């Protein structure tokens, strides 16, 4: 059987083992630093939650159709709940950044369409053009241009609020 180490040496080696473990903990709890963007980059966030227009217009039910439905469900008007897809386009300095078509949420596709995109872009002056189509015809109903001089690390948020009548640029 190998001769056991002297007590004092065991103590020293145990201390070194604990110190090694502590070093691993201490180091990897803060290091290495993570580079989440380039030094001369700003961050663009395109995010909104918007309910598109109803996909189908209301229509009058005819008598035969009404007769087929249960008595308590005989609404003269049939208004399908499904909403249209929402199309959003974002250009930066004339170059397309995003072209996203997003479907409404919900089993009946009657909820809001939601978008979240994050992108690192070069800092400096930029012209953003945003367009949104929310009807069944796919025609652009909202568009907005915005000039901004972004500093490194600055976060530009592009939201869409129907109440504010279109795109809202924050942080620029």
């Amino acid at each position, binding site marked *: *059987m*190998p001769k056991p*180490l002297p007590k004092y040496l*065991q103590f020293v*080696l*145990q201390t070194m*083992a*604990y*110190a090694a*473990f*502590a070093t*691993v*903990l*201490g180091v*990897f*709890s*803060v*290091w290495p*630093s*993570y*580079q*989440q*963007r*380039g*030094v001369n*980059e*700003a*961050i663009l*966030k395109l*995010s909104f*939650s918007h309910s598109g227009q109803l996909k189908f217009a209301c229509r009058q039910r005819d008598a035969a159709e009404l007769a087929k439905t249960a008595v308590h469900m005989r609404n003269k008007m049939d208004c399908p709940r499904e909403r249209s897809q929402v199309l959003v386009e974002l250009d930066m300095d004339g170059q397309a950044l995003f072209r996203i078509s*997003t*479907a409404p*949420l919900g089993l009946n596709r009657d909820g809001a369409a*939601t*978008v*979240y995109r*994050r992108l690192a872009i070069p800092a400096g002056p930029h012209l953003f053009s945003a367009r949104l189509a929310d009807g069944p015809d796919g025609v652009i109903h909202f568009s907005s241009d915005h000039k901004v001089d972004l500093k*490194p*690390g*600055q*976060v530009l*948020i592009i*939201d869409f609020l129907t109440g504010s009548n279109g795109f809202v640029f*924050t*942080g620029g």
Partner: protein
Amino acid sequence: MFSQVADFLDNIFPPHANPWRHLGGLAFLCLLLSCLSGIIAYTMYDTSVQGAYESGLRLQNDPMRLGPLLRGLHRYAADAAVLLVLLHLIRETVQFHFLGARWFSWLTGLGLPGLLLISGLTGLWLLWDERALYSVTATAQWLQALPLGSELLARNFLSTQALNDRFFSLIMFIHIGVPLLLLGGTWVHVQRISMARFYPPRSLIWGSLGMLVALALAFPAESLNPADTSFNAAQLSLDWFFMFIHPLAQALSDQTVWLMVSGVGLALAMLPLLTKFMRTAVSQPAQVHLAHCNGCGRCAADCPFTAVMMTQRSDASPHKFQAWVNPNLCTACGICVGACPSSTPFRRIEDIVSGIDMPDLTVAMLRNQLKHELAALTGLHQIVLFSCRQAANLSCFADHSTAVIPLHCAAMLPPSFIDYALRLGAAGVILAGCKEGACEFRLGDQWVRQRMAGLREPQLRARVPRERLRVLWPGRDHLVIQKAAADLRRSANLTALQTPHD
């Protein structure tokens, strides 16, 4: 490689307190330390958008240094728990501890790292600094990658105005609730093993506590700049034990990381299915022979996996109980055989049958093998080596004066066999097992030591000359066994020289 790590640490730590063999207990200790320090920190935490960051700073800037100590202990204990759980998982995987009866502990343990990560991430968010904002947004993005259609989650962190105090109450609720689930999960994790060691030995507890306190004071866990939704820092110092997943998702894509996590999780969960292909003759479960079972319960008391239970007698025997083996839990270690009082080779019947026996290596086979092996030896000072199959490669020891009897576990040997071997003429007996504290079947070394010391039934009789017995825990170290054999022979030779001849 892992056994080399254990062997290396054996030189530094006492074998019973080798941290490599207490990774689960150490992880639980760290979890507990993190919980206790967290309870104290909670009393000083303000769950509001403005107050969250300030709470962290207040602790950080405590002139008495108790705040940094508390924060550091809370943080580093959680980090240590992640590292120890990872090492525990790796060690159990390479030791194939997912096969057979161990499937339950394996499966119930797989979810625990996930709960640990959720606990840690939510804890880091509560500090509401740059790192917290980065992590919470990255987590929201990652969750949005699930095909649920919604991209609303990350919108909550677009601006400070989008947040309200309820967010921190919710996160605090998760940060307290998930560790409670973790503690409950740990309890379930060890349900199918008996005498589970929740805590490591005392020396490791004090050592770990000292290490964490020293680390907390030497390198205080500090907040970064307050979370600012309008500015994105180029570089962030991350707690990689918990936040490794964010850079990974950014490098590979959120969907890829979901696929990786679910793929690895599924693959690990499927590992117990390999049992079907890896079952060998050795792994046949123990069998109870009612006619020889007196219902003493020693087998049930010694079984490390609660596979043996005592039930009401089902035959006409006057004994109240009988042993019953659950084959799904039995790891075929044979420890129950070593505990059974009827497993004695001194019984006079030709084919002895034990109350509980291993079908592939019955007590009768063991006795016959011992007799034949001893009879076949031609050398002087014959030695019988009973050795655990998990330990040394036995074939190298067999020679003209050494009989080698392999066992499933060292604790499978009823102590009376040692007495029997000496009576058959052996000059000495060696009983060898895995390294101390590293028994493949958890409790084998503990039971052997107690049986030999007369602290546990069945005991080694007092009349057995202890100088002719060596109980060793060499693991795969051949040298230890060879030296013990040489030592036994030397003393036998000495005795022979000192004994006057007629």
